[in-house]
């Protein structure tokens, strides 16, 4: 059991293949991509976020990840609020992004222990589906990549992005 998970976990995330995760995203009404601080140090993750955004998925940039994204032409819906704030907002049923209610959130580029707590909050206190496309398995997410080696991780991200449909 990893350090950022719990010994007593009531419901663990389903670890799914990237194509299946993408299908879930495709089926959702208003998914958003939430990006974290790893984008400041990993250009590959920036590239993945840009391509997800190109598929028509709005981005909420946390942890100052807005900077590399804006440089690549992305216009995040939020740039200023930390994941802690954004989670508090998402826990409120009245929260809207340009009039739309988030029903699924994809997480990319966060510290594992940090994201784990956020996923725990959403798991217990909201109905929003959470999808962790991180190199670590996240038991508190609704759906997660399994734990994989570095090289496999980027391959899985490729498959995930490739399977996303362009949203109109």
């Amino acid at each position, binding site marked *: 059991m*990893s*350090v*950022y998970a*719990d*010994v*007593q*976990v*009531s*419901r663990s995330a389903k670890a799914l293949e990237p194509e299946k995760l993408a299908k879930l995203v495709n089926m959702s009404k208003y998914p958003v991509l939430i990006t*974290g*601080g790893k984008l*400041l140090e990993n250009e590959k993750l920036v590239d993945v976020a840009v391509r997800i955004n190109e598929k028509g998925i709005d981005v909420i*940039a*946390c*942890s*100052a990840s*807005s*900077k*590399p*994204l*804006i*440089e690549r032409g992305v216009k995040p819906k*939020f*740039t*200023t*609020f*930390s*994941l*802690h*704030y954004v*989670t*508090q*907002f998402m*826990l*409120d049923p*009245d*929260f809207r992004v340009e009039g739309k209610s988030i029903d699924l959130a994809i997480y990319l580029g*966060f*510290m*594992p*222990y*940090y994201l784990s*707590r*956020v996923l*725990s*909050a959403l*798991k*217990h*206190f909201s109905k929003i589906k959470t999808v962790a496309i991180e190199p*670590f398995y996240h038991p508190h997410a609704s759906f997660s990549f399994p*734990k994989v080696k*570095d090289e496999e991780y980027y391959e899985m991200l490729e498959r995930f992005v490739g399977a996303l449909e362009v949203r109109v």
Partner: protein
Amino acid sequence: MAIKIEDVLRNMKLENVNITIGEIVEEGKVKAEAEERKEVREESLPVGPTPKPHILDLRYWDRVLLERFEPIYMPMQDFCNLCTMGPCDLSFNKEGACGIDLKTQKARIVALACSIGASAHATHGRHLLEEMIKEFGEDHPIDLGLEVDVVAPNIMTVFGIKPKKLKDLREVANYVEQEITRVLHTIHTGQEESYLDYESKALHVSMIDHVAMELADIVQISCLNYPKGDPDAPLIESGVGALDLEKPVILVIGHNVVPARFIDDYLREKDLHDLIEIAGICCTAIDTTRYDAKAKIVGTLSYQLRIVRQGFADLIVVDEQCIRADLLRECSKLGIPLIVTSEASVRGCEDRTNDDVNDIVDDLVNGRAKGVLIRDMEKLAKVAVKTAFKSFLRRSRRNVSVNVEEEIKKCVNCGRCVENCPHSLRIDLAFARAKNGDFSLLKELEETCIACGRCEQVCHRGVRIVDVIVRIGEAKRGKVRAGRGPIKDSEIRNVGQPIVMGTIPGVIAPVGCPNYPRARRELSEIIEEFLKRRYIVVTSGCHAMDLGIEGGLYEKYGGDFDAGCLVNVGSCVANSHISGAVIKIANIFAGRNLLGNYAEIADYILNRVGAVGLAWGAMSQKAASIATGFNRLGVPVVASPHCLKYRRGYVGKFWKRDKWWVYDIKSGQKVYVEPCPDALIVCAETKEEAIVLLARLCFRPADTYLGRQIKLTHYLELGKKYLGCYPDDWHLFVRTEQDLPLKMRDELLQILEEEHGWKIDWDKKKILEGPIRKYDPGFNPTLLKDIYEKYRR
């Protein structure tokens, strides 16, 4: 002498009276009379509505805070295991066998954590108080120096008295202990049903924590001749590189200065002071150097394992709090003798207090006793010094060698260490690269690793990971300004107005443990950004150490409580001088009465004083209570990503307009205001994010237009620099075109018109429509109806 006379005359309002030198013999009498008048004045000060507040007395203030800054819970466990009806699965906010739901259970755990933190400071304070009364007598005066008249702002505001002698503090300590027990009682099974009530308990006990810290620190300052608000307190040689390893080294670890002080006194008495290095880790290091500037600070609490494993400590003496729970085992492996001194941390050691000094020393040096408990401090000092000399002669026998290459070869990159690392550091990748001769990642790891040793516990190949990491690093060296204690009343007089008006853009207070999310140098990078922008920075504890050892900031920035300066107040308990300083702004600058008047003072601070804490590596329960105590006082705190593990934040929702209102005493209206501050405790993931957030949390509704302009300038500039754009919410802080930075005014007016739909008169460059409210220089905000009614009369 001249200054003293002037002070006395000013006190007596006799500035124009001529006194010849011959009459100065009467100075004592004059001073005594002045003191007497002052006492009469002080005794006639009105006492506010809540002296010695009961656990429920300030609940109404908590409700006001919690309505705006809603708690957010991030459970660490889905289950409750506290009683035998469980384990209960509380997931999805289900109720357990006792009826408690998940949110309330999490709030209960937070209240428990804060109680633990407060109890640590309370016990520390009580110990110091009784020790000092034993030595100096109960009539020993509380004296923080000539320029500190408001000696105990927390005690005054909460407890409702101004303590003058040590004996006055006994009553305060009794109250502190009573309130902690009261809160602990509520945590028992079958008590509260609402998470808001547990939050109120957490806030209450954390406010009490600041009283306990203040008690502890004013006792030691008054009795041990610490610096008394001295901005030029000495620079202390710090870091492993500062140690003279040709001498025996006594390493002191913990938070309570008493054992180290006795050792220091003994060395002076025996004229051995220059022959031994006394070096400290964690807050004991800071307090020892406040007592003796020749002592050295080795580093933060994360240096414990690194130091022990390097084998140069000839004796380790521990007191209490934040000491590794495997210290005796680690010392034993290398034959380093350990002396324990506190009832809180006896570590299975035999009580040798009544044994002969030489017998104890022999047993320690020869390894017959791996560690001993000594409760008599005079005996401890003798044993410590003798043991250190003898142990020093055996230092070369300690086998600290590590074959780095062999250890690296043993690693199979399974990643188990990564999964168990509190920072999820990629130890596997660093070792894999090192196998190929590339040590760059390993070097990076050394900068980031807090040397907790969890990786070694799970490594099935037995790789000595910490030892490898430590060998890669270099011995750091720097200077830390000795903790100066209180902020002087005169400093508050100078900066109170610019802080409240906003022309000093804010007070940033980095406070906390060294459990940093990234390299330790990030803390210095964050802080230097604000020092260059002329914020006041006031620090304490392990953060204060890293700013010197890693950042070298004390040599670059002055120690006054003023714009662009860096103040180290001291150890954990000296945090009370930071809360004390913001309280003193309400008192000295604004003339608000302190005694028993907590809610009014906190309301004043929340609406007017742009002070923000930064807990960039908070780890302990004490850190939880310190931060929560600041929150009740109206001071927000930015915390590191690790702090999500405290499970609870207080985070407002800027987009809910009905949450952001105040009573305006001037207009007699309820007024919607800009969402500032928009959180009381909230985490950031990266230093870049933390910097922008800190700047935002310095806004206050009462800012003047000039102050708002300055704050907005920094917020916008920092947004551009670190977020790549202006922050999303900057327009919410604009009340008038005068709030806009001059050099950006046209551009910003354009954005307000085009992106936010505001109406602009371009001929006059005036905002016609758009802001949440209009700017009014006489705006006088409060969140409390009773305060509104009091000042409307």
